[in-house]
C-alpha cells in the first residue's frame, strides 16, 4: 500500500507524465489530497472537474491549449496562460462520465503528460470504463495508480507539519460537485492530530 507522501514524491521527482488517484469515499480522498498538497513543495496546481457538460469540456480544452499554443507569437503567451501551462493539472472525473470525457482525454494524452504532468482523480468504479474509453492515455499511466481508500495515514514529521485543515478553494469547489461529502475542518484537525508521527 502506498502513502500520499509517496505520491507527492513521485509527482515532484518526475515532473511529467500522468498519475492516477482512485477513490470511493470523499473523506479518504480529501485526506489523501491534504497529505499530497503538504508534500508538493513548490509545485503549483490547477484543478478542473471533467463532466459531460459542455462548459466543463470547454474548460478542459482551454487548459490543454495552454500546452499546445498555436498563435502568431507563442512566446507572448499571457501570464495567466503560462502559469496554467506550468502547473500540475488535477483533473477530477465526474462519476459515470468516462464515456463522454475519456475520448477527449485520450486524444490529448501528449499535452496532458507534458511537464509538469497531470493527476487524474477517478472514482474506483469508473476506472475500468475510463481505461476502455481512453486506452492511449491509460497506457501512459502504467503503475502510477494510487488508491485513496487504501492509502496509509503515515507521514514524515515535515509533511505532518505542513498539513493544512483545508484544501485550496479551487479543489474544494470541484469536490462539492463530486458525490459524497467532505469531512469538516474540525474532523480534519482531529485526524491531523491523531496522525502525528512518533517523536522518537
Amino acid at each position, binding site marked *: 500500500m502506498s502513502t500520499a507522501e509517496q505520491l507527492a*514524491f513521485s509527482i515532484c*521527482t518526475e515532473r511529467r507524465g500522468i498519475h492516477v488517484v482512485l477513490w470511493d469515499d470523499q473523506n479518504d480522498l480529501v485526506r489523501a489530497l491534504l497529505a499530497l498538497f503538504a508534500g508538493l513543495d513548490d509545485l503549483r496546481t490547477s484543478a478542473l472537474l471533467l463532466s459531460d457538460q459542455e462548459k466543463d469540456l470547454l474548460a478542459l480544452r482551454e487548459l490543454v491549449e495552454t500546452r499546445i499554443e498555436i498563435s502568431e507569437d507563442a512566446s507572448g503567451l499571457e501570464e495567466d496562460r503560462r502559469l496554467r501551462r506550468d502547473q500540475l493539472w488535477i483533473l477530477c472525473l465526474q462519476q459515470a462520465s468516462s464515456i463522454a470525457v475519456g*475520448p477527449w482525454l485520450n486524444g490529448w*494524452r501528449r499535452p496532458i503528460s507534458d511537464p509538469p504532468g497531470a493527476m487524474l482523480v477517478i472514482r474506483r468504479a469508473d*476506472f475500468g470504463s475510463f481505461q476502455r474509453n481512453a486506452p492511449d492515455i491509460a497506457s501512459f499511466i502504467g503503475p502510477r495508480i494510487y488508491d485513496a481508500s487504501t492509502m496509509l495515514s503515515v507521514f514524515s514529521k515535515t509533511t505532518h507539519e505542513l498539513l493544512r485543515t483545508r484544501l485550496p478553494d479551487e479543489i474544494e469547489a470541484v469536490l462539492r460537485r463530486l458525490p459524497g461529502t467532505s469531512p469538516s475542518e474540525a474532523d480534519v484537525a482531529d485526524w491531523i492530530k491523531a496522525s502525528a508521527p512518533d517523536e522518537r
Partner: protein
Amino acid sequence: MPRSLSDLQQLRTALGRLNAERRAELGGREDQTRYEPRASELHKRLALEVTSRRGKARTLVTGQIGVGKSSELWQFFHDQKNASEEFIVYCDLEQQEHPERCGATGVFLTIFRDCWTETQRFKRRSERKFLQLREEILTRLIDWLGGERVGKDNKLLFKFGGMDFPVFLNEPNKALALVLGKAAQHEAVSEPSDRFGLVPDSLVNLLNNLLDWFTSQIRGQAPLLIIDHVDKIRDAAAAEDVLIKAVPHWNRIRASIVMTAPFEHTLGDLRHSVESKWGRPIMLYPVPIPELSSGSIPPIYLKIVKNAGLDALIHQESLHLLARYSGGILRSYVQFLIDACKEAHLAGHRRIEPSDARKVIQDAEIAYQDYTTTELALLDEISDKETGLGEAATLLRSPIGLVVAEPKDGDPELLVHPLARSALAKYQLKKQKAFA
C-alpha cells in the same frame, strides 16, 4: 563513493534517461529513452516496400499500444534520410492535435502542415517558383477556410470554432505554417458538423506541387511520407474514413506513404477492406517475454537498463521480474524501471531489489482488477482456442490482456499478458466451482 539510488541526485539522473511517454531516439537527449534496435524485420520490410514501389508505396504499420511503433518509425525515418534518394517527411498526427476522431481531412492537413515545415530545410526559398507556390497555397487556403483580409496591415482573420484567429502576412512562410497548423488542429478537435468537409482537389494538387518541388530540389525520387499516430484514431467511423474511404485521395498524392493504423481496426469487419486497399499491414510485435524460470533474458531489456546507467543498480531477479511482467511491451518496461527506481529510493535501497520490483508489479496489477466478466470470459476463450482476435479489441488495449506475439509457425501467437494472469486464474477457478 559507490553509486546508490537512495541518493536523490542519482535517482534523478536515472529518471532523466528514461521516458515512457515519448518515443525512444538515438542520441539520448535528457528526458528521453535511448533507442535500441530490436530483432525485428520491420525496417527491412519497410525499406523493401519503399524502394520497390518508388513514389507509390502505400503501407500500414500496426501493433499494440506501447509496443514501440513511433520509436521504430522515427529510427527508420533517420536511417532512410541518410541512405535513400527520397526526400522524407515525418508527419505527426499527435503534434498539436487530437487524433481520437480525426478524419481524412485532418490527416491531409497534418501532412500539408508538416511538409510545409520541411521547406525550412531548403535555402532556395526565395526562388520564383517557390514564392508562386506559396502564394497559390495561401490564396486557396484563405478561400477554403473562409479567411478575410482585414484593413491594410497585412492581417488575415480566420474563424475556427467561432473564435477569431488572426494571422499577419508580414512573414508569409510563418503565416502559412500557422494557418495549416490551426486548420489541422480545428479539423481534429471540432464536431463533424463544424468541420471544413472534403479537401478541394485544388489543394491536393498544390500539395503535389510542393512534393514535386521537394523532388526537384534534391534531384531524387518522389518523396516518402511517414505518417505517425494515425493509430490513435479510436473512433470507428473516423478510422474507416481514413483507412478505407479516403484511399482514392491518398492514391492521388505523388509520394510513398507509410502510415500507422489502429490495430483493432485492421482486424474483424474492416480487415478485408483494409487489406484490399493497402495490402496486409506490417505488424510490430512485442519483444519476447522472458520466462522467470530460465536464466536468459532478451538483450534489449539489458541494453535499456544499461543506457539508463542502471546496470549496476538493479538486482538480476528484479530485472527478470520487470521484463517478464512488462509482457514484452517496451513502454510498460520503461514505466516499471522508472517506478522501481523510485521505490528503491523510498525504501532506502542502493539498487532495485526484488521487493521494489514486486511492489511496482502489484501497483500495475490494479489496472487489471476492473476487467468485466465478459472480458475475462473472452480472454479465457481466446487463450484456450488461440483464435478470435477480431472480437477482442478491449483486450488488446490498455490494460493489455492479450499479447499478440511474433508468429512461430505462420500465425501470430496469442498470449495472456503476465499481469492479467491472476485475474484470469481467479475467473477460471470461479467458473470451475460453478460447474462442479
